[in-house]
């Protein structure tokens, strides 16, 4: 696929510059908004590795997000370990869960797999709601981060920015590696992929684990920022839906698509909910989802990138330049 180096220089340059933003003493709200934007973007970018490149549509990634938050939250409550340090463990726990879920279910295809991912969220929610270890229906209270509000905002802002950068680098790597090529072949025709020797199952599982790992890390950081976890919002389908919307809206063929989608969706969401009302915003997102799928299947980023050659040719091109 054509990918001019300038693009990623711009993107990473902007993100690194954003890392210096706190020096300008912005309001907590600006930091808080960007914090949400970056966390969603990081998850959407990671989701896209399986959902976009691989074509395995998952509405279940919030499970990994919630798992990361609860595992690190419990480590903080019981052992006093800061989630900012144990975040990778949260990611690992999420990846482990992804292995348990993915190993049997990644053999399913199309809508069947998607149904399973929805059901895993519902199951996870019931389990967390009814297991005493997690605080069940009362929720899990954690000690506050030990900083004043502004410092705290800055620290969490930087933390998710780092996660976003890592997710982007990961997605970019996957896209250009044999891995990503294999995933796209799977998306186009899984049986053919197997026939030409693509280890389909291993690639799908790998993509699921990677994306789960990132979501688990984001969950760990986010849970600590909230200091209060409850299955009602840690295992809610809505964030999953947002990830899917962001990736599809931005464009799922490119590692940068979900980031573009996240920026667009988050700004629209914030403006609409603050100035118009939540129901109107959600109705609009519903329509947007329809329009994107029907009229902009490659996402808004396809307006920006040069026209792609037909799919089959794209796959062929990938062989020569992995």
């Amino acid at each position, binding site marked *: 696929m054509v990918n001019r180096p300038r693009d990623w220089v711009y993107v990473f340059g902007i993100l690194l510059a954003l890392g210096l933003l706190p020096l300008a003493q912005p309001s907590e709200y600006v930091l808080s908004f960007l914090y949400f934007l970056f966390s969603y973007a990081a998850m959407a970018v990671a989701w896209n590795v399986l959902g976009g490149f691989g*074509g395995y*549509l998952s509405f279940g990634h919030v499970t990994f997000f919630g798992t990361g938050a609860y595992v690190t939250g419990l480590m903080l409550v019981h052992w006093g370990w800061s989630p900012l340090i144990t975040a990778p463990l949260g990611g690992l726990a999420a990846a482990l869960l992804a292995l348990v879920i993915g190993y*049997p*279910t990644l*053999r*399913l295809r*199309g*809508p*069947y797999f*998607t*149904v*399973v991912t*929805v*059901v895993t969220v*519902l*199951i996870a929610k*019931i*389990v967390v*709601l*009814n297991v005493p270890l997690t605080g069940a229906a009362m929720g899990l209270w954690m000690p506050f981060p030990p900083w004043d509000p502004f410092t705290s905002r800055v620290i969490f802002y930087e933390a998710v920015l780092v996660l976003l950068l890592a997710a982007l680098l990961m997605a970019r790597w996957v896209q250009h590696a044999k891995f990503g090529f294999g995933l796209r072949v799977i998306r186009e025709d899984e049986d053919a992929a197997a026939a030409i020797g693509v280890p389909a199952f291993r690639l799908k599982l790998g993509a699921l684990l990677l994306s789960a790992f990132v979501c688990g890390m984001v969950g760990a950081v986010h849970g600590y920022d909230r200091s209060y976890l409850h299955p009602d919002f840690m295992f809610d*389908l809505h964030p999953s*839906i947002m990830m*899917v919307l962001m990736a*599809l809206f931005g464009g799922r063929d490119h590692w940068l698509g979900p980031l573009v989608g996240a920026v667009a969706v988050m700004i629209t969401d914030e403006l609409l909910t603050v100035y118009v009302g*939540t*129901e*109107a915003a*959600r*109705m609009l*997102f*519903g*329509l*947007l*989802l*329809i329009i994107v*799928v*029907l*009229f902009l*299947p490659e996402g808004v980023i396809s307006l920006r990138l040069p026209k792609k050659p037909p799919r089959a040719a794209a796959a062929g091109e990938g062989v020569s330049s992995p």
Partner: protein
Amino acid sequence: MLVEVVQAVVTGLLIGLTFAVLAVGFSLIWGTTGVVNIAHSAFAVLAAFLSLVASRQWGLDPIAALVGLVPLFFILGVVLHEVLIKVAARRTKELGLASMIFTFGLASFMENGMAYVWGPGPRVLNTAYTGAAVHLLGISIPLTHAYGALLGLATIGLLYGFLYHTFPGKAVRAVWQQRDGAALCGIPLHRVTALTYGVSIASASVAGVAMALIYSFTPATYMVWLVNVFLIVIVGGVGSLLGAAAAGLIVGLVSSLSVLVMPFVWTNLALFGLLILVLLVRPSGLLKR
């Protein structure tokens, strides 16, 4: 204990029929056109709200309101096909997945639209027979359940008759079994699919009223109903009418009997577990030959 078990079986069967009728239309569309219509249960919830309005504004019995609702939802189904599905079928490659996303968008649009109009809180349908029951040998049969089940039975029966004993119905089945072959035989594919959507969404309106007789509902309830629909369709086999009916009964029985052997709160877990198990063991459906 025996009375308790019999009571649970009876309630389970009645509820199961109601769920079955919600699932058949969904199954029909998935089977004939490969579209996974997430908004199916949202249409049912819409019908529930409309029957509530009919009952509150004009004192109309919800079952009588079906005289207006069924044709209306038939038209909605045809419109859905003409406006969205046709475009989607032309423009997207993986229709199953694409349809899941955009019908999800439609469902979300409908949910929030309903919340805007009727409010997000739970609503319950009140009828002359709500809370009344027939008592037989220590077993109680709530009339709402009985009527819901009868509606379900009648609708499934009519659908069966339509699909197996009328020409347009046979055409629908032909399209679903052999799309290209059917076209070669001169069956107008487009009109047959439009008809399928009309029938499917019309059956969703019946299901919505039947469900509303028994359950409380909110605009967001469609998600809960949808999970049951998936479960039934996957257990019964995609596209199978009688499979869906049988699976509906199984799901109804599991959910009403499980409370006898495990804490109630784990009931849904048992159903979800069943769903995943069936998917892994026999994704083509337990009951499909």
